[in-house]
């Protein structure tokens, strides 16, 4: 921090100054230009995600601590090189029940969260979150811009790897003026800046799919609605649920063969 930023003669409670509306939720930002945040070297954001809403995958140049103020759901943190340890096997899995189709997938670990949880996201690790409950999911996140893991200057910046965040509706609070922070949600995703041909080559797919990566036609913003629900491979949410599922399976196949 600049020495001057900590000459705080008066402190005052702060409200969010910017709201970024998206298809299935809203993100509110406290303005990190405020001296109090400058002095602490942090910034604060609050995501309010509707039921069946997903915060698109993105990564930030600062470590991030998120508190689950309300609701429950699950999240993924992609650490490049980590194995895909959540894998559907050949037998039927929960995801296939009733769907009638064979659900096959393998991906990195999925974490589940509920009210009261604190979740730590390392700097530069892409992450996403999904509200699987029926009520709103509220995540209050602190981004530690002064952390030495951040070498990108004193502001935190969010890099989306999907969607077209600039489609969100911005409403500016009393601070006015353009701040770097708001720019994070007025932008495209990182694929948008690459040549489509190179993307097609890099992914080994056709041009059309590579173009979809760039999300230029995507009007949904940074929190999208997944009407049919999100199917992933993951363990039961709780002990009771696991026992209930086991009972169901026994009912379906008789006593569990060993």
């Amino acid at each position: 921090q600049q020495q001057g930023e900590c000459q705080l003669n008066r402190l005052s409670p702060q409200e969010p100054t910017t709201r970024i509306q998206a298809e299935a939720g809203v993100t509110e930002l406290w303005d990190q230009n405020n001296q109090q945040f400058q002095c602490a070297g942090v910034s604060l954001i609050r995501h309010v995600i509707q039921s069946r809403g997903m915060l698109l995958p993105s990564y930030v140049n600062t470590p991030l601590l998120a508190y689950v103020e309300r609701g429950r759901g699950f999240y993924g943190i992609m650490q490049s090189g980590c194995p895909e340890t959540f894998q559907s096997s050949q037998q039927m899995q929960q995801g296939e029940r009733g769907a009638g189709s064979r659900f096959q997938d393998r991906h990195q670990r999925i974490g589940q969260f509920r009210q009261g949880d604190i979740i730590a996201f390392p700097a530069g690790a892409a992450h996403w979150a999904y509200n699987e409950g029926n009520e709103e999911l509220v995540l209050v996140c602190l981004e530690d811009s002064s952390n030495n893991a951040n070498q990108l200057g004193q502001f935190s910046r969010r890099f989306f790897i999907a969607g077209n965040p600039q489609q969100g509706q911005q409403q500016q609070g009393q601070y006015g003026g353009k701040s770097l922070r708001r720019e994070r949600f007025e932008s495209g995703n990182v694929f948008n800046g690459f040549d489509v041909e190179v993307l097609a080559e890099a992914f080994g797919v056709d041009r059309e799919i590579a173009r979809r990566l760039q999300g230029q036609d995507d009007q949904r913003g940074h929190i999208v609605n997944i009407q049919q629900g999100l199917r992933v491979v993951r363990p039961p949410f709780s002990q009771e649920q696991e026992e209930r599922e086991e009972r169901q399976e026994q009912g379906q196949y008789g006593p569990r063969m060993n």
Partner: protein
Amino acid sequence: GIEETICSAKVRQNIDNPSRADIYNPHAGRFTTVNSLTLPILSFLRLSAARGVLYRDSIMAPHWVTNAHKVIYITKGESRIQIVDHRGQAVLDDRVRQGQVVVVPQNYAVVKHAETEGCEWVEFNTNDNAMINTLSGRTSAIRGLPVDVIANSYQISRDEARRLKFNREETLIFRSSGRARSSERV
């Protein structure tokens, strides 16, 4: 004793030797790193380095460095380099030649494409254990995502999502079909 002081610390390591490659693709090139795990003194410097070789018509996967700025110095040939910031803007899309230097800020996404001729470079990282997160390939962030997340993020079918996820089995250095050569798409 003296063997454990900085006076006797190992301060040199060669990264040109192909046999030291950390990542190797016989058809596309190799990538060799030196960091505080392989050269401990770097933990004092908080710096690391890497050596990259791309053969003609090869691509280094789009990636970002999570914990360091990167300074790339081209030692041979040339490569098209694109660098994208958090707004999705290409802040650099250029053919970088021997003797030129490019800075890739932390978290900026970058892709290198050696088109008409190969390219060799050395890169310096402002962290003693710089970590690369790739966007495509077997160890990429996209590969780590559930198919459903991909399908819904990009508004594509599950089948297309699987192709995005699994079509590239290499990790960092890819052979390209030459279709993407920008110099010939004018």
